[in-house]
Every structure is written in structure tokens, then in C-alpha cells.
């Protein structure tokens, strides 16, 4: 039971990673692939946040009721900081991906992967 409590979040994260990876390699529509990429990224963020947890600890904002000397009182703030910036960078790079998709659609009038490869070979 304690093994289950310590590891169940990892299995959900693996499920989300597999869903994202499935969309990237199996779907033919490029927008679907980008959505899969977004799910993949969110699950990696979830992994960092999930591994920062401590049982019976509080959020990383200083509260005089919890002494700072005992670090087990506060959840590890370092992964939170790293993932905070990663989310915003993720949305900016998603914008770049959609800019590329719109340009591709303007040129080839399709977003289907295999049709795109065929069109590209013809030119």
C-alpha cells in the first residue's frame, strides 16, 4: 500500500506521456500532433511538481507558525520555480508552432502529414 501511495502519480504521468506520444506518432493532422506535444509537455511539468511533494508539508510561503529550520515543513520550491518559467515558454513556442502551421497551410492547402510529404516530393 505504501508503494502504491508513493508511486501512483508516476503511473498517471506515464499514461499522459503515452497519450501525447501516441498523438505525435500516429495522428496525421499536424494540429493534432501539436496538441499531443502540449499534453506531453504538461505531463512532464506534472512529473516535476509531483516529485517535489512532501507529506504533511505546507506550501512554500513563509508562515511564522512553521519554523524555517525544519525544512520538512515546506514543500521543495525549486522544481516549482523551474516549471513556472517552462509553462510560459511552452505557450510562446506553441505560438511559433502555429505560425509555422499557418504558413504551411498557405503554401500547400493541407495539414495532412502524408499528403504534405507527397506534395513536397512533387515540387
Amino acid at each position, binding site marked *: 500500500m505504501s508503494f502504491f501511495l508513493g508511486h501512483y502519480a508516476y503511473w498517471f504521468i506515464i499514461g499522459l506521456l503515452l497519450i501525447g506520444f501516441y498523438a505525435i506518432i500516429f495522428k496525421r493532422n499536424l494540429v493534432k500532433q501539436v496538441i499531443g506535444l502540449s499534453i506531453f509537455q504538461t505531463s512532464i511539468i506534472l512529473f516535476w511538481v509531483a516529485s517535489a511533494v512532501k507529506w504533511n508539508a505546507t506550501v512554500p*510561503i513563509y508562515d511564522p507558525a512553521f519554523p524555517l529550520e525544519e525544512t520538512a515543513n515546506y514543500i521543495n520550491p525549486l522544481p516549482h520555480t523551474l516549471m*513556472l*518559467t517552462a*509553462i*510560459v515558454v511552452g*505557450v*510562446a513556442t506553441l*505560438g511559433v508552432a*502555429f*505560425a509555422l502551421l499557418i504558413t504551411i497551410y498557405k503554401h500547400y492547402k493541407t495539414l495532412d502529414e502524408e499528403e504534405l510529404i507527397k506534395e513536397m516530393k512533387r515540387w
Partner: protein
Amino acid sequence: MKERDESPIVLIVSRILSPFIMLFGAYVIAHGHYSPGGGFQGGAMLAASVLLVRLAAGSRISELQFKRAWGTPLGIAGVSLFFGVGLAAVLFGGQFLNHEFFHLIPGVTGPMLRSLSILVIEVGVGLAVMGILVSIYDDLLEEDERREDL
């Protein structure tokens, strides 16, 4: 976007709501020292308040609130503000981004000085995130808006 129906209710509600979202975004940036929040969240909320009017009212009305040419300069200004805080520490004889040397305001030293420079950095981050998100939105919608003008 194409075939927009002008609904007065949506228009008025979004125009009334937008300043309040903007105010809350500014509060989130300024209060990030004491509660969850900070530059990234507040900047995204400021961008959301601009995007709300853009989505509801179209480009002609939202140009009055935030011009489409402002996005990229605002982003560059935010990053320069962040970089300037780091560089100021170097000019006062410390290391890059070492806030204890950021002596722009006389009489403030030690922890309070670092707290103050964190606030300046958060404002820079917020401006940059707001400007860049709005400018990405404008770029993605570029062609349609032009066709309306023709």
C-alpha cells in the same frame, strides 16, 4: 475572425470587464512577494484582458485600447528592464544580477533592497509576457484583419 455577429451585450460586458482584469493583473504582479503570483501570471492576465476586447470587439475598437504596433516594443522594454537591473549592479561595482549592489534609491539596503529589485524584475517580466503574448495573437490573425481593411 470571419462572419462576426456584433452583439452589443458581449461588446459592453467585455469592455466593462477588461479594466478590472487589468487591475487584478497589476495586483498579482505587485503582490507576488506575499502570495502566489508574480510577473508571469500577472503578465498573462494583462494580456488576457487585452485579448478579451480583441476577441469580442474586433481590431478597430481594440486599437483604441492597445495598438497592435505596441506588442513587440513592450516585450523588448520588459526584457531591457530586467537586463538593466542586472547591469545596474555591475555599474555599482557588484556582480551581474547581484541585487545587493542595486543602490538606486538612497537609504534602502540589505534585504529590503533585494525585495525592491525583485519587484522591478517582476514588473519587467510582466510587461514582456504581456507584450509578447498580445503580439503573437496579432501575428497569428494578421491576414484576416488586413482583408477587412481592403
